[in-house]
């Protein structure tokens, strides 16, 4: 039996960064908001404090802050000819679970994606001609511009305590920052993080080679900080336990110490944890969704939560899954290329080289989530001509340490035996004397990379698992070859004793960990035939349904996604507050 609850103004599905931002903004605008979070509530004091948080077994191997694959997971395959099998253990990506979401265990890297991404098809067609983009590459313009999003990037960066060095303020190039970034209205919220030795060495070499290195912008507070909402941050202690861990010092920009407590303090807000949403309820006749169905995980009871507005703000993959399970929009079919839900799933790619030195002590146990230095010469730099290489996209190259785990991080030179005395000797030396250079690369949408519902496997609620079909295409190989060459060139120029060479990734596999930057599936755009959402992340079919997260990206870039995810959450909140609430209906006419 389903218990029907009292209607609220808005129901939020998933309470991480996007859900938290919307919860705060909409409760402050006077709406009655209920947030349904499938995980538990956690706090810095109870769950992320020293010494308990310094636990590689619990947080890295047992995935304490991540989604539970015994309840729900994905099936995975590389192409449509294969049979997909369930991912029984998290590997390639690590979606978070619980209040704060993946914004608890992220590293904090916060980038401003530029018009290079938002106008991707137009820009490449303009420069390289219409035939440059392969037929199966389903990239499209996003329907927004950098200039429109700039104030929202700013708002997110100041909320999340992003530390960095501006490279372009209102068109004026700033020494020491990223000279290729799009113009920003003002400096970062906080000065850049301290430069660690590995980053400094990379920086010096890259500069000598004519590149433009800069400190990576990251939501790790470089000093104590009070954000514009009054949320207080401690200074980053460079503890080395950032990615996959909650922050012990309240120094990492996280929703559980910023927007969520503000919403929680409002009488307009209610949080229900252990609440697993199974379906969005809809009324096709009125073109409105009417609420959601959820199960209380503690006792199995089912509830209907009616709402005037439904906001999907779960992890990107879960948002898409819920759309498919609820039969909203036409599921995408890669053969006919009809339908939109599940379309344009993208991942990221990358290459890396390990460098081994003599007489250097890198102290890899001391770093912030973002104490890397980076070059953007092959990404945001539109002046770099991709034409001779024949690909679309970009990659950043960076070096430094981020959560170089004391137990898990065991770099050794190629050719070292994998066990025994020689391995022990090599890793004992290399732990202190090696560093890494890595490239993070974009992945362009392809008609055969997509999500749909699995025909065989079901989750704990008897619902079909989401099926992911993904592999790297020739575009990514071409870019990977160039990225590997450049990484190896920089590595050689740093003059190590030896280095393990970077090579382009061939096929994607679900192990080991690569990145949690899954994008697409309910993409935004200007045309309802090829996108699920309009530019305000409002569903084309049901105007009181908004879907926020990296699932709205029509393709994936080189940068980490949280910058635009946070900015778009504020952008959508403004559209709802200033326009939708006054006149509920489609904000863009189809």
């Amino acid at each position: 039996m389903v218990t029907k609850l009292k209607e609220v103004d808005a129901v939020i599905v998933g309470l991480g960064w996007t859900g938290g931002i919307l919860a705060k903004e909409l409760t402050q605008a006077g709406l009655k908001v209920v947030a349904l979070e499938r995980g538990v509530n956690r706090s810095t004091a109870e769950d992320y404090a020293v010494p308990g948080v310094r636990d590689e077994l619990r947080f890295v191997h047992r995935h304490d802050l991540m989604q539970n694959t015994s309840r729900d997971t994905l099936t995975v395959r590389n192409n449509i000819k294969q049979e997909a099998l369930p991912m029984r253990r998290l590997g390639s990506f690590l979606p978070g679970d619980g209040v704060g979401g993946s914004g608890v265990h992220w590293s904090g890297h916060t980038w401003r994606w530029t018009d290079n991404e938002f106008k991707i098809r137009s820009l490449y067609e303009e420069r390289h001609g219409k035939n440059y983009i392969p037929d199966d590459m389903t990239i499209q313009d996003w329907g927004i511009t950098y200039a429109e999003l700039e104030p929202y990037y700013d708002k997110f960066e100041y909320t999340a305590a992003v530390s960095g060095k501006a490279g372009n303020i209102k068109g004026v190039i700033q020494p020491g920052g990223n000279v290729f970034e799009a113009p920003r209205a003002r400096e970062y919220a906080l000065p850049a993080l301290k430069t660690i030795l590995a980053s400094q060495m990379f920086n010096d070499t890259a500069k000598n080679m004519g590149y433009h290195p800069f400190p990576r912008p990251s939501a790790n507070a470089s000093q104590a900080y009070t954000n514009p909402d009054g949320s207080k941050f401690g200074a980053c202690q460079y503890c080395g336990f950032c990615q996959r861990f909650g922050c012990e010092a309240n120094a990492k920009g996280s929703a559980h110490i910023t927007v969520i407590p503000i919403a929680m303090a409002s009488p307009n807000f209610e949080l229900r944890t252990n609440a697993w949403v199974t379906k969005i309820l809809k009324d096709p006749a009125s073109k409105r969704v009417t609420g959601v169905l959820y199960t209380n995980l503690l006792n199995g009871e089912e509830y209907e939560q009616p709402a005037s507005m439904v906001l999907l703000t779960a992890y990107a993959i879960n948002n898409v899954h819920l759309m498919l399970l609820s039969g909203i929009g036409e599921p995408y079919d890669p053969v006919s290329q009809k339908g939109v839900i599940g379309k344009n799933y993208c991942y990221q790619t990358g290459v890396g080289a390990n460098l081994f030195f003599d007489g250097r002590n890198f102290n890899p146990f001391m770093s912030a989530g973002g104490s890397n230095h980076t070059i953007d010469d092959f990404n945001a730099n539109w002046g770099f001509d991709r034409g001779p290489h024949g690909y679309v996209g970009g990659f950043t190259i960076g070096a430094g340490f981020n959560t170089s785990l004391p137990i898990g991080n065991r770099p050794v030179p190629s050719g070292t035996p994998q066990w025994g005395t020689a391995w022990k000797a090599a890793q004992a030396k290399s732990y202190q004397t090696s560093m890494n250079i890595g490239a993070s690369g974009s992945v362009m949408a392809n008609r055969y990379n997509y999500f749909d519902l699995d025909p065989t496997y079901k989750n704990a609620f008897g619902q079909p698992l989401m099926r992911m079909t993904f592999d790297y295409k020739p575009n990514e190989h071409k870019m990977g070859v160039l990225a590997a060459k450049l990484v190896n060139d920089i590595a050689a120029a740093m003059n190590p004793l030896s280095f393990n060479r970077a090579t382009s990734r061939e096929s994607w596999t679900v192990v080991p960990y690569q990145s949690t930057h899954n994008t697409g599936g309910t993409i935004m755009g200007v045309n309802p035939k090829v996108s699920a959402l309009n530019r305000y992340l409002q569903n084309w079919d049901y105007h009181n349904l908004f879907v926020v997260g990296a699932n709205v990206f029509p393709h994936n870039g080189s940068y980490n996604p949280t910058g635009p995810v946070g900015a778009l959450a504020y952008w959508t909140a403004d559209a709802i507050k200033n326009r939708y609430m006054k006149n509920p209906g489609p904000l863009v006419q189809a």
Partner: protein
Amino acid sequence: MKTLIQGLVAVALVNGGAAFAQDATRGEKLFNECAACHSPDRAAKDTVGPSLHGVVGRKAGEGTEFRYSPAMKRSGITWSSDTLNSFISDPQKLVPGNRMPYSGLPEAKDRADLIAYLQATMK
């Protein structure tokens, strides 16, 4: 709180070993270093760290409901401006193994002002 602190501006404390005047108003600003984890208010609850209301004169590892580390409980310290000054300059040096994730406030003047502020909150 504001008027109280303003009344204490530039009161030179006899103890603490500092040869300059302490500025509790400046100390209040410096308390931002601590505010993500500690509250100075009278009615404060423990958060990530223990409430610091009335910390001067308290025995280390006692006085609030906070779950102090064994290192802090064993330290035998009573918080005075001297011991606080030493602790804040390098927390792991004075109490090795304590679980406060903070590397210390290097400037003596900053520490003196911060301690003056903590004392002012008790009045």
